[in-house]
């Protein structure tokens, strides 16, 4: 059994090459169009996802959930066909839907820019300049798509086993050459690949079921499968749906056991006003990406603030019923909520796959702790600007007290937003410091090892005063060297993200 994935662009000949190759191999040929059609029929808002790329590539919280559903559906769709026998698939990056399945043959097709330009001018009936703009825009949209969906670069050559330039080949000859490649033992499925395919298939079908069920469709899940055991990881703010997970999945064919677990790495970020364009946001996302953590936003507003505002800001993102009539949803006027940038920041986090929920709490420090779910395994609490109505000195004191209070009660490292970068991110200042300390360590080692005899004589002296001096020297030098060496080591670990 073989799976051949051809990554194609606009009018590059990829589709024709895939069809030619499938014909030669005598296997079915499946295109992205078939997948998209099936996804549309299943009620997935592919159009929303696609146009989000045209409009800059940002996904709202609601679309981020839709993305999970789309990816799971696509994986299940491909696995379904692959389990029936060999196939050739042509689309954007089909191979990324099947991670861990070795022996896939991953081919990228490129073509001469002039060839593409002429093809677009001919097929769309537009002049040269518009055709050029069309190609540039569509290529950029695809780059955004692959990055938003899979977090990788579409054009990274390491993603592919072969890159075929149809400028040098004609399609028939390219198909003939690839037929030979496809028959190499390196691209035949092994029992391990089949198992990986089965595990992916099971996990993808489970995720699709969770997306279809009203009890679980609004939540974000990560689902993995292994030999019939499904592990469903949910975010802390979706804990209420956890009891429904086994019920939704119990009827799924091939499941032996369902394990529902809360995500283990979470960052709680507390601010009074969030701003997704701020430096703080960038730092938090950087740390979260480094740790693979979800970020839960907690907007702390002064005690006694308007309760309506709290309720509105705390409500989860509304999800419309599936299959809204003719694609037109109810025209409900949404209240304008002043939420201190909470929703926009939650959407921005969802867009980078780091959203862990968002809510507003209006309470004093000691009441705040009641609003924090103590069962959530937070890895870090970040406290930003809060108590904004207070004067500078009072604010600094209150923030310090809040951090101490939270750290003590939650037993979790708690840092101020301004310290986040220096504590967890490797910056230019760290690099300079590491190089400087490393130079000192090298200097100390060089001095010691190029003067071994003198050093040994100094420490082996027999006179009493000399022994006292040697002991005093050891007392001073050893901690200094340890400090220098320890600093270099800790900065190095921070650099390679092993802190």
């Amino acid at each position, binding site marked *: 059994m073989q799976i051949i994935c051809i990554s194609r662009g606009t009018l590059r000949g990829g589709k024709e090459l895939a069809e030619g190759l499938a014909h030669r191999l005598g296997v079915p040929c499946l295109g992205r169009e078939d997948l998209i059609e099936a996804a549309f029929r299943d009620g997935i*808002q592919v159009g*929303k996802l696609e146009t989000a790329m045209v409009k800059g590539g940002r996904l709202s919280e609601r679309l981020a959930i839709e993305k999970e559903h789309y990816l799971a559906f696509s994986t299940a769709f491909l696995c379904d066909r692959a389990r029936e026998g060999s196939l050739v698939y042509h689309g954007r990056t089909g191979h990324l839907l099947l991670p861990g399945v070795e022996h896939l043959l991953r081919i990228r097709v490129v073509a001469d820019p002039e060839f593409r330009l002429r093809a677009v001018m001919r097929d769309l009936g537009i002049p040269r300049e518009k055709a050029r703009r069309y190609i540039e825009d569509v290529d950029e949209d695809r780059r955004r798509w692959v990055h938003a969906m899979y977090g990788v670069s579409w054009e990274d050559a390491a993603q592919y086993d072969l890159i075929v330039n149809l400028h040098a080949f004609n399609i028939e000859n390219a198909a003939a050459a690839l037929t030979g490649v496809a028959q190499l033992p390196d691209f035949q499925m092994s029992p391990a690949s089949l198992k990986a395919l089965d595990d992916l298939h099971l996990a993808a079908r489970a995720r699709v079921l969770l997306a279809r069920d009203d009890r679980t469709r609004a939540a974000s899940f990560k689902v993995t499968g292994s030999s019939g055991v499904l592990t469903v990881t949910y975010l802390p703010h979706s804990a209420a749906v956890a009891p429904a997970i086994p019920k939704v999945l119990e009827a799924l064919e091939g499941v032996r056991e369902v394990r529902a677990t809360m995500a283990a790495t979470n960052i709680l970020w507390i601010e009074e006003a969030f701003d997704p364009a701020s430096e703080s946001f960038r730092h938090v996302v950087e740390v979260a990406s480094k740790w693979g953590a979800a970020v839960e936003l907690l907007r702390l507003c002064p005690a006694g603030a308007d309760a309506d505002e709290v309720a509105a800001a705390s409500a989860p993102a509304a999800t419309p019923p599936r299959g*809204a009539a003719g694609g037109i949803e*109810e025209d409900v006027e949404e209240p304008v909520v002043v939420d201190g940038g909470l929703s926009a920041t939650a959407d921005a986090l969802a867009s980078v796959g780091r959203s862990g929920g968002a809510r507003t709490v209006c309470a004093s420090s000691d009441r705040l702790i009641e609003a924090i779910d103590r069962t959530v395994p937070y890895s870090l609490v970040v406290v930003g600007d809060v108590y904004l109505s207070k004067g500078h000195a009072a604010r600094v004191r209150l923030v310090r007290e809040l951090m101490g209070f939270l750290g003590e009660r939650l037993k979790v490292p708690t840092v101020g937003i301004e310290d986040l970068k220096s504590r967890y991110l490797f910056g230019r200042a760290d690099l300079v410091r590491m190089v400087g300390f490393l130079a000192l360590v090298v200097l100390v080692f060089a001095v010691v090892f190029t003067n071994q005899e003198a050093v040994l004589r100094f420490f082996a002296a027999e006179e009493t005063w000399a022994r006292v001096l040697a002991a005093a020297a050891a007392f001073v030098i050893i901690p200094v060297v340890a400090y220098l060496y320890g600093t270099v080591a800790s900065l190095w670990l921070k650099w390679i993200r092993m802190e």
Partner: protein
Amino acid sequence: MNRPLSVLILDDEPIVGKRLKPAVEKVGFEVETFEDPAQALRRLGERDFDIVVTDVRMEEVSGIQVLEHVLSRSRRTKVIIITGYATVEVAREALVKGAFEFLAKPFKPSDLRAVMDRAARALGHPGIPKTPEE
């Protein structure tokens, strides 16, 4: 006082016109809805509309063809494409051929009104008043 802007809505699903017509009329636009692209094209041959809202995927005539037809008659008309079957390729084709905006279904009528407001302003019209009841 500005004359009301004329809007043609074309979608082969009757529910779309049925739901969008009152939602657009309530902000003071004159709306005609069509389910049959051939009839809509005939009507477009009879008069120029300020704004045309069309689905992309229909039997016999595509929204892109409607777009080309409208713009060949009146460069001034703003064409808004709506579809559930959007792909970046279709969206970019529509935009490069002169569509004013591309709106993926499902959407709320208020989303369409927001786009129409921008289209109206681009036509020199003051746009949709914030509180039409007043």
